[in-house]
Structure formats: structure tokens, C-alpha cells
């Protein structure tokens, strides 16, 4: 298995993700860890709520993984995404990519997170003291 894709309501395990992509043949691992930020445009964020259209989200993430493997000489590629309520500092997403040489790992990892944000049907709601908003819903 060259890729592992998962959506989970449980806390994501960063070290387990890194271990999963590491191979004796690897020369480097690139990891992107998304974290819940405490503010948006100066407003204090209390928490985020993530929701996924799970079946389709998995299938869109599989497409992204397939594209990344076709574009770069990557050894293993992992995408884990959280759902549910996340506090500031918690981790909604981990992308981990191993490759023999760093360029492929860096570029593939960036491609995966950038494309995930554009195409994968997952939504986050920001909860403020005085209200809440679905991110990116309105122009």
C-alpha cells in the first residue's frame, strides 16, 4: 500500500503518520500539519467544527493522491483529516510524503494540501464569541 487516506473524528497521531510513510529507501519526509488558529481577521476564534461528505471526500482525496504519485517520484503518501469539534491548537489535517529526494516530497506535499483545500468536500465552521460562519461560503 503506497497511500493511506483516512477521515476520522479521533485525534490525529502525527508521529504515527510520519512512521507510516518512512521507508529504508526514503531520503526525506515532508509533513504538513494543519492547526486550528486562534483568530481570523482579528476576531478571536473559539473553536472550529469540521464536517465531511465522507464517501466523496475519500474518493476526491484518492484522486489527489493518484495525481501526486503520477507527477512526482514519491514513495508513500498519507492524508488524514479530522471531523468534529476542534479547539485552538488541535490538528485538522496531516499530509505526509516520503521520497528518495526532498524536491519530490516538498512539491507533492504542497500539491496535496493545496488541491485538498480546493476540491475535497469538507467544510469548517468558525465559532466566534458573537456568532459563527461557514468558511468561504460567501463572496
Amino acid at each position, binding site marked *: 500500500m503506497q497511500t493511506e487516506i483516512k477521515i476520522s473524528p479521533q485525534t490525529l497521531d502525527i508521529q504515527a503518520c510520519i512512521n507510516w510513510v518512512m521507508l529504508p529507501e526514503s531520503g526525506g519526509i515532508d509533513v504538513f500539519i494543519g492547526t486550528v488558529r486562534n483568530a481570523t481577521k482579528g476576531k478571536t476564534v473559539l473553536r472550529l467544527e469540521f464536517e465531511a461528505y465522507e464517501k466523496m471526500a475519500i474518493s476526491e482525496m484518492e484522486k489527489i493522491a493518484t495525481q501526486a504519485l503520477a507527477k512526482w517520484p514519491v514513495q508513500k503518501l498519507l492524508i488524514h483529516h479530522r471531523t468534529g469539534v476542534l479547539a485552538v491548537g488541535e490538528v485538522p*489535517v496531516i499530509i505526509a510524503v516520503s521520497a528518495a529526494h526532498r524536491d519530490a516530497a516538498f512539491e507533492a506535499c504542497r500539491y496535496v494540501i493545496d488541491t*485538498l*483545500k480546493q476540491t475535497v*468536500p469538507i*467544510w469548517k465552521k468558525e465559532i466566534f464569541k458573537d456568532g459563527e460562519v461557514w*468558511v468561504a*461560503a460567501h*463572496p
Partner: protein
Amino acid sequence: MKINILAFGIAKDIFGGSTISVELANDASVYNLKYSLEQQYPRLKKLATYMVAVNNEYALPEDTIYETDEIAIIPPVSGG
């Protein structure tokens, strides 16, 4: 035909639930569905954009909808 539609994110708020059911002509397209929903739920038109997924794939406006399809409304995504 009557089709059930799944809603996520802000679409759930707009529809007032995570599924709604809509009556459509038998050879309706994705475009027809969007038009019909926008008449019933004008707030959809205020969104930055929204897509329709048919059987877990993004659909084009001209795609035909069948009664057995799984249809979902996909407002702007914001994962990561």
C-alpha cells in the same frame, strides 16, 4: 420523479436539514435541479458558488439526473 438531496455545510442551514426531497421532471439535468432549488431556497444564490455531486462525483450542468442517483449539494469547500 422525486429525488432526495443530501446537504452539507451551509447548504444544511439553508435547507433547514441534512436531506430534502425535490420533485423533478424525469429527464431533468443538474442545471434544472439548481434552478428549481434556487426558486425554493433563494439563499443558494448568495453563496460564492456551489456544485452538485452525482454519485460522489462533481457533476456538470448538462448531466442528467436519474431517480436512483445519490445527489448532494456541495457549497464552497473549506477543509484543511
